[in-house]
């Protein structure tokens, strides 16, 4: 018997602490697979944020650190300078990356730091109980937007990939979704590409993954996926926003 699919070596044996049906686990697994397939388990450093995935330091089997809310790209910058041979990746939610950490995200991208930023966008703050996120949709309810997000008062959801793509320097920016097995396979390709680019010392890579939050959306795992397909993808379309390697290929 040959094993054709199993829990990757990039993940530890620890039970994931996410809610049933939460797609964080899928994101973790495809990163774990990519780390194993690219032979990075021993030479990568992962940075866990503040948010539901704060415990990621227990779930990835490479060297890990847990850092202040939003500051992962700055910590990654310090690490890259100290250990230029290490692949460094951050794993961040929408509050961590696009609210408190906006400056660190933008400036790491602008400096073309050779890191991969894995951005899990589920349009809500999970760990703290369902408050509004920078990516919460117009009229979407959250505990701090109990009457729905009023864009006049609270602005529109932020499209991070589009924003960062206006910068000169980032190397690779893609938005993917985790909402179906087919999408997950595409997402895995993007994750692996990002880490491979880092291995080749190409520069800043960001993969935004459209995900769900069954618990705080008040929907079961299947209904959450359907809701995200219908409502999030039109606002956050999947696609490649920057791929410097492809651009250089095309210009030849």
């Amino acid at each position, binding site marked *: 018997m040959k094993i054709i699919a199993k829990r990757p070596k990039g993940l530890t044996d620890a039970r994931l602490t996410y809610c049933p049906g939460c797609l964080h686990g899928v994101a973790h697994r495809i990163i774990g697979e990519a780390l194993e397939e690219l032979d990075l388990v*021993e*030479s990568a*450093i992962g940075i866990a944020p503040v948010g539901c995935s*704060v*415990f990621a*330091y*227990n779930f990835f*089997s*490479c*060297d*890990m*650190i*847990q*850092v*202040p809310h939003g*500051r992962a790209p*700055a*910590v*990654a*910058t*310090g*690490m*890259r*300078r*100290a*250990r230029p*041979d*290490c692949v460094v990746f951050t794993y961040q939610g929408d509050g961590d990356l696009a609210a408190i950490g906006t*400056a*660190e995200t*933008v*400036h790491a991208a602008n400096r073309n730091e050779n890191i991969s930023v894995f951005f899990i966008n589920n349009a809500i703050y999970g760990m703290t109980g369902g408050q509004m996120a920078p990516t919460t949709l117009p009229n979407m309810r959250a505990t701090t937007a109990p009457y729905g997000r009023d864009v006049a008062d609270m602005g529109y959801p932020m499209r991070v990939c589009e924003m960062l793509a206006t910068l000169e320097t980032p190397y690779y920016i893609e938005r993917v979704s985790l909402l179906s097995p087919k999408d997950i396979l595409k997402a895995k390709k993007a994750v692996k590409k990002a880490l491979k680019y880092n291995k080749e010392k190409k520069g800043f890579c960001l993969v935004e993954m459209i995900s769900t939050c069954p618990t705080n959306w008040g929907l079961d795992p299947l209904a959450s996926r359907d809701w995200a397909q219908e409502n999030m993808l039109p606002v956050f379309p999947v696609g490649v926003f920057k791929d410097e390697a492809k651009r250089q290929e095309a210009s030849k």
Partner: protein
Amino acid sequence: MGEKILMKGNEAVAEAAIRAGCRHYFAYPITPQNELIEYMAKRMPQVGGTCLQAESEVAAINMVLGAAACGVRAMTSSSSPGISLKQEGISYIAACRLPAVIINVQRGGPGLGNIAPMQCDYFQATRGGGHGDYYTPVLAPSSVQEFADMAPEAFDLAEKYLTPVLIFADGLLGQMMEPVTFEDDYGPQSDKSGWSLGCRKGRKTNHIINSLFIDPYVLKEKTEELFRVYDTIVKNEIRYEYYNVDANPKILVVAIGTVARVVKTAIDELKEQGLEVGLVRPITLWPFPYKAVKEAAKNVEKVITVELNMGQMEQDVRLAVEGACPTKVIGKAGGVVFTPMEVISMLKDNLA
């Protein structure tokens, strides 16, 4: 021992840090320490190191956190409002048991204050500063040479105890120029392979650096472990200077940094007039030299704290004296620096 060079405090401490093996410096411009980051920007590339101007003081302290986690000597510097921004990061560095050096070249506060030299971040420096139960060793220099020497000393302390260390300077020290010499060799760095991150070739288990302990009993234990380290620091690392204390003075002054130099001038002048005043100059502000102050205060009539703030260190002085004699504080806000004439006059009033 090298030749004497006339250098600005900000630049001297940067040079000393580099000679002590620091190759990773992250900071943001803020007066009155801009010469430090500018010097680093020129010098670091010459030695193959990194000087990165971060997008904020918050980003800078987190870059230090990342570099320190990978086992290198990492440093940042700022001035009062910027140090306020760094407090969360410093708390994390302390909780994660990482070595790092932070330099505060103080200015007027609170708020934006001004750019004149002050000592008004004493509480912030010595009472943890950020959230949670922790302390950071604090070194207070009083001359450009001492300031420079404290860079390698701070790194050694940081590595010995796995803690961030703060150097407590002020705008005067940062800006003034004095002759400085540097050592040829500041000694080896510690071995960090037992816990540092990155390129773990051959190492069987991964390293995790973390300060979250969700189980209250585990956090209790971790904190108590941290405080056992602090007990050792208190036992072994207190530093202070006595000046004219054995001349049987009637008054004891406690002062630090550049204020202590003004006080020394006043003491010398008063001695010529036949009046004896003693000075204790704490060099470590945490741990504070309580015993040394108490000892020196044994036979005096009064202990006066002179500081460039509205009265912060005087609380530690009161704790040290334990009511054995009256204490008072002569403080000044605004960055209006004490003159020797002023101090002489105040001490004379108190001797009367």
